[in-house]
């Protein structure tokens, strides 16, 4: 009896002494998904936790809208997560943690994420490392090849202009009775691909916002004219108000859109949902008078500076950015890599169907064709203010509420007012 008591006591003592070793740090990770990347990330995190039993990572998946609208409020209130996947890199930059003091090899980060780190930094900061790109995106046209074939209309070539694409899309739609000849996401980011192609700059020589210039006017006039002539349906740009995003994913999947201007992030979704219903391809970006450029962009996982566990966050980030793990993430999520080393080696998209693999190749090639002004626009810290003002006011003009000139004046006023408000101290 006495021996048994001793044994029980010893086991109890052993268990109690082991408790501190098993104590876990919990990291909250705010995430959103466009396609399958959430499942892939969950899988990778499980493996991280198996290797690092002292860290538990909770992936809080939220709608995309919450990333832009709710997360900034949380961050400003100091109630943010430990790390988050964000797209408004400039807007969230004041709340990002510089990981350099906690990284084993900061040079690996600057070598592989260098050009994109600038998007995550505040003006005047040229050195911090707040996170990494989960994907590099580039905008571009997605084309329903089957509808073109059925209509007997030739696909515009690699150097075709926006006007060429609009003409071809209208011809196809008229023949096959498709309701949306050319659909462009109701998004300022997508509109800027067109505007930059016609020479828009977004930022003036003085480094200040200059949203309405000649290139911008030309692009806005084209979009307005396309709505009048039936090349674009008012259902996307004219049917909602304010800053609301509207895409044409469902319409494209239902073969109602011959040409859909969106971006590389749609590939995984289309690969999964379109299947063999029709042939679709990604095409090179249409040309304007200045460039044939898409808008770069993407999402980044960034560390949040209010975290109480910066070392564990850095450890997780190092794991997620290691070449093999990140390659697997890009490959399984069907994302264009935002890691220079991986991009150079190429990603083997083993699970992709031929159409998706070909589209990824096209978008990958488009990254090299992105104009410097597009990178500058994407890196501009107040770009979302300009994007939002653009779709809000241009949407009104398209719906018949005022002229384009009135819309231009309102865009300039909105941008000035919002930047001034943000800079009030």
């Amino acid at each position: 009896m006495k021996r048994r008591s001793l044994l029980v006591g010893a086991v109890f003592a052993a268990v109690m002494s082991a408790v501190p070793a098993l104590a876990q740090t919990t990291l909250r990770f705010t995430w959103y998904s466009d396609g399958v990347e959430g499942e892939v990330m969950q899988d990778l995190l499980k493996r991280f936790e198996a290797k690092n039993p002292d860290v538990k990572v909770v992936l809080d998946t939220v709608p995309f809208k919450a990333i832009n609208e709710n997360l900034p409020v949380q961050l400003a209130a100091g109630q943010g997560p430990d790390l988050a996947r964000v797209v408004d890199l400039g807007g969230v930059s004041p709340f990002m943690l510089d990981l350099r003091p906690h990284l084993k090899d900061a040079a690996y980060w600057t070598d592989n994420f260098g050009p994109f780190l600038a998007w995550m930094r505040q003006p005047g900061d040229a050195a911090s490392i707040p996170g990494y790109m989960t994907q590099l995106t580039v905008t571009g046209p997605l084309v329903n090849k089957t509808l073109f074939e059925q209509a007997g209309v030739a696909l515009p070539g690699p150097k075709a202009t926006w006007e060429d694409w609009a003409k071809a899309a209208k011809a196809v739609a008229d023949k096959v009775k498709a309701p949306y000849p050319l659909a462009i996401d109701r998004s300022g980011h997508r509109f800027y691909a067109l505007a930059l192609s016609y020479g828009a700059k977004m930022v003036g020589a003085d480094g200040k916002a200059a949203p309405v210039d000649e290139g911008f006017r030309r692009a806005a006039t084209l979009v307005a004219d396309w709505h009048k002539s039936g090349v674009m349906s008012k259902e996307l740009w004219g049917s909602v108000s304010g800053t609301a995003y509207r895409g044409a994913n469902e319409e494209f999947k239902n073969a109602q859109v011959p040409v859909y201007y969106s971006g590389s992030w749609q590939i995984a979704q289309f690969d999964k949902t379109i299947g063999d219903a029709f042939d679709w391809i990604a095409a090179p970006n249409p040309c304007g008078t200045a460039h044939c450029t898409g808008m770069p962009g993407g999402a980044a996982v960034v560390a949040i500076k209010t975290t109480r566990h910066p070392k564990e966050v850095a450890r997780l980030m190092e794991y997620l950015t290691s070449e093999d793990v990140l390659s697997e993430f890009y490959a399984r999520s069907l994302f264009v890599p935002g890691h220079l080393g991986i991009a150079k080696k190429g990603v083997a998209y083993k699970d992709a169907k031929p159409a998706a693999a070909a589209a990824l190749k096209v978008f990958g090639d488009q990254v090299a064709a992105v104009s410097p002004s597009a990178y500058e626009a994407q890196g501009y810290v107040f770009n979302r203010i300009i994007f939002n003002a653009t779709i809000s006011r241009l949407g009104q003009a398209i719906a018949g509420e005022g002229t384009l000139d009135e819309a231009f004046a309102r865009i300039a006023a909105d941008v000035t007012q919002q930047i001034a408000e943000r800079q009030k101290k």
Partner: protein
Amino acid sequence: MTDRSALSREPAGASLPARLVERLWDGLIALVDAPLAALQRLVGAERMAYFFLAPNLIFFGLFVFVPIGICIVYSVTGGAGIFPFARPYVGAQHYATLADCGSYLDPHSCQADHFWRGVRNTLIFSAFQLVAMVGVSLFTALALNRDIRARGFFRAAFFFPVLLSPVVVALIWKWILQRDGLLNAAITASGGQKILFFVEPGWAMFWAVFVSVWAHMGFYTLILLAGLQAIPRDIYEAAEMDGTKPLRVLTRLTLPLLWPNLLVVLVLVLIRAVQTFDEVFVLTGGGPGTATLMVVQFIYETAFANQTQNFGLASAASILLGGLLFVLTLLQLALARRKAA
């Protein structure tokens, strides 16, 4: 304070569980009775009312008055900071921005044109919704008050949409009204052309009002039905004996006697119409253009949807809207008192 013997309702020969419950009840009363009796001796019987009101007042204050106070502070401060101490004082600047108009009848002449478009749309929506809601609810209540077949079923059917979430209601109707929706399918099947309901401003406002009436009329019908059932039958019997025509019965008997209930419905409908957001936002997104943009959507978008989350301007607009709702609430209270008198 309490006569415990009076509260003990244990009947002779009651079952064991019943007796246990009664004992437990007596124990609880005894537990509460002593401290409350002591408190009453201390503060006096009149002031005990405050003690009983305190929990509700604290809860209400914390979640209503404190946010109103914070909103006022935000409305006189600027910047993008979230904590009041991190926001510079700007005085009435946001109110001045909202009030800066060439003509209040022309939103386009205003600096905050979206706010005034929201005001105009909210007024139009409220006017149409008020007439439609009261009219349809009254008609339905009158019909359901008659001795019709399956009256219970119809009463439940008309009330059912009230139980649905406004977002669900809007999504259902969006599905019906979209380009390839149920209604367009019916129109094309009968040889007509598809109508893009969310592209035409007139149609968008019509459906915003229609869906709102569809979703909430059950509630107001219920209020009016209660009023109709409270009207004594013998008045109608007397009118029938006098050979009064049905229309005259309606205008000279039913409506005057129902007037107190109708007034309550009018004010409630008006307050709700001014606050409208969720249904219309999900159904039309405020479009086309800004044709169905309501004041509350302006407040939401100003505060949250932009990169610069302009809590100051949004709060100033909220205070103005709150003022309007306060006036409407006072009106409702005055009418309710008149009804009681």
